[in-house]
């Protein structure tokens, strides 16, 4: 098992590097296959390697690289937040979407756009997205908590209700706003990665990368959560405090990821499950594996979406949904077959 875990992490890292090279190399405009490698090597100090021509450099550095990095950051964030939600609520079906965090983030973002706050300050959009995610998760949390215990069933129901409400508000806001465009509407309901620039990366990375690391430091606490809150508390963990901290941190990370790529679904559900199946439930390996795996998954989905029928682009959210729904269904069937008590 130990070897398998180390092996999985190693393979994932290598695949991620490979995905980076491939995803930057492929696109609507043809670029010489080794351009990116040459550019990278040259920048790393191997001056003997000739730089590719200027047009290729522009495409790679200003168009594709930020997009691929955004996919990786967002994928890793959503997958890790999914792991955390599932562990916290002892429920394999929990995820940022189901708990209303994504819907809150989208509404925050759309509010920032329609109110003009986003054009006043560069921080406007990410800020309101994070605030929206935090508020909706707080609301769901308090709605489903009574007398100090949080009921899983009520979390799911409250999350669904709040999500529908907030999604409805998002659609309404987009319809009445003057900047209404179909692409905008699609972006804030399905998510996408088109047109992501270095600016998005510079805003998001300083929140997302440390955020994921901090969540990873709470792996052992997440392990304890799966025993039930009573057992976790008897082992010396301050359950309520840890739960609130992890929930808030996840909401901030998810909100930030949404401000970059919109509400991309299923990553937080699909990736953690796959790795739990592969390497077990111990969060100390599950979180790094899900971070790498989520980054890889979203990069590949985006690559598929933009290379199916170039120059047309299929949004990455559509690809994840098409892959995610059947997986979710197969998961339900498997859970039923093993009669694992999932939602209770």
């Amino acid at each position: 098992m130990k070897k398998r875990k180390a092996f999985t992490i190693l393979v994932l890292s290598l695949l991620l590097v490979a995905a980076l090279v491939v995803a930057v190399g492929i696109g609507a405009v043809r670029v010489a296959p080794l351009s990116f490698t040459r550019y990278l090597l040259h920048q790393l100090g191997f001056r003997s390697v000739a730089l590719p021509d200027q047009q290729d450099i522009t495409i790679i550095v200003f168009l594709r690289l930020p997009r691929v990095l955004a996919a990786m950051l967002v994928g890793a964030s959503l997958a890790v937040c999914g792991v955390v939600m599932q562990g916290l609520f002892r429920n394999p079906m929990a995820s940022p979407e189901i708990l209303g965090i994504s819907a809150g983030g989208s509404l925050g973002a759309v509010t920032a756009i329609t109110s003009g706050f986003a054009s006043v300050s560069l921080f406007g959009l990410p800020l309101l997205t994070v605030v929206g995610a935090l508020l909706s998760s707080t609301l769901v949390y308090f709605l489903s908590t009574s007398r100090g215990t949080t009921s899983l069933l009520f979390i799911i129901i409250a999350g669904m209700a709040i999500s529908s409400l907030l999604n409805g508000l998002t659609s309404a806001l987009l319809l009445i706003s003057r900047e209404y465009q179909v692409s905008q509407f699609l972006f804030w309901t399905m998510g996408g990665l088109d047109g992501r620039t270095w600016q998005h990366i510079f805003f998001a990375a300083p929140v997302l990368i440390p955020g994921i690391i901090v969540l990873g430091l709470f792996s052992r606490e997440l392990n304890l959560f799966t025993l039930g809150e009573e057992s976790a508390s008897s082992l010396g963990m301050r359950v309520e405090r840890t739960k609130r901290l992890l929930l808030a941190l996840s909401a901030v990370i998810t909100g930030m990821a949404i401000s970059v790529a919109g509400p991309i679904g299923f990553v937080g559900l699909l990736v953690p499950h796959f790795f739990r199946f592969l390497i077990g439930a111990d969060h100390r390996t599950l979180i790094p594996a899900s971070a790498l795996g989520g980054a890889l998954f979203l990069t590949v989905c985006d690559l598929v979406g933009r290379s199916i029928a170039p120059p047309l682009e299929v949004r990455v959210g559509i690809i994840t949904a098409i892959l995610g729904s059947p997986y979710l269904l197969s998961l339900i069937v498997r859970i039923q077959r093993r009669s694992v008590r999932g939602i209770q």
Partner: protein
Amino acid sequence: MTDALVRTQRLWWKIGGATIVENIDISVSRGELVGVIGPNGAGKTTLLRLLAGLLVPSEGAVFLDGRNLAVMDARSRARKLAFMSQETAQNFPFTVMEILLMGRYPHLGRFERETAEDHEKARRTLSYVGLSGLENRGFGELSGGERQLVLFAKALVQDTETLVLDEPSSNLDIRHQDRIFSMAQELAGEKRAVLTSVHNLGVAAQYCSRLLLLETGRVAADGRPEEVLRSEILDRVYAVHTLVSPSMATGSLTVTVLPSRAGVTGARVHLIGGAGSAVNITRELHRLGYVLSGGIAHEHDSDERLWRNLGIACTRVGAFSRIDNEEVLKAARMVESADITVLCSFPIGPGNQRNLNLAARARRLIVLAPGPGDVPRTFFSDEGRAIFENLCGNSNVMTYEELISELSRMKPAGKESSGPAS
């Protein structure tokens, strides 16, 4: 009192107006295995949770090794006290070893990993509870009993002086039950303090050095098993009749619940039924402790069958045969010696019409009015109707509910504490 590991001081716990734990003062020393017993809802689990620091007392305090739990941080509490919860569900594919190592949590800093020593400790504990070789099995694949043993092992891996176990053997067969309580005894022998809730009083008597009997949140008795397990205490707390006797094999006490009707000599009631009309009332009065008799019934009728199975005296005639005056005379002794005779609702025809003559001999006759679901009291002869109307003139007519409530009120002596009506 330096030996007291766990001590409570006027401990109360209330929720929403209800008092679950009321003014409990106990002290548990090293070397004691204390069984917390009591009926469902007596507050056993709540008391254990308070002792383990999982609930905050409404009033009073819990002291662990002399220090007030309220001012102890969770981590240092967890190094002194382990709690085994009833909860055994696990939705994620952890291995047994991973579950066991979670017991080391309070001993490790955030950036520390379990050492080889911790792994060895977990492995040994697993073999101590009898599950060696299951280290890498999925926890979720184990049986309910094995899961409980693993969680017990996890509490041992936590390595604390005090152990609080909430129903540790609820899913266990007798072999595993013996194992878990023997281990609890051994742990107490190592000068630890072990508190456990137990439902089975025989098990409590066999293994525990001391029993704490709870009754609606209060301590009803506290002492050695032979001091606590006494019929006069148990009968009151559990509302049953018990027989406490030493086991022939082990010498420890066994508690047997006696059938709730035993030894009752109360009022006598005779039932005149047929066509299943007396089934419910027979059951109800049987439980209330009345001495019953029945008849005249036809063989294989459902009333007759129930009376026969319950050993109730009854006069019978062959299936479909006519009741004659001869049988009435035979049955008359039962009716005349009964304090009350009840005439149930059944169709009356020439075959059973003599039952009405029988009813006429009653010392006190109660005629049951047919309820909505009952067999209607139809008459197939004018003679029968005439006798019946005559009977009704000098007796009470009651509905089933009225009858039961009246008979519950005048229950036979010695039955105050039993039955759902109390």
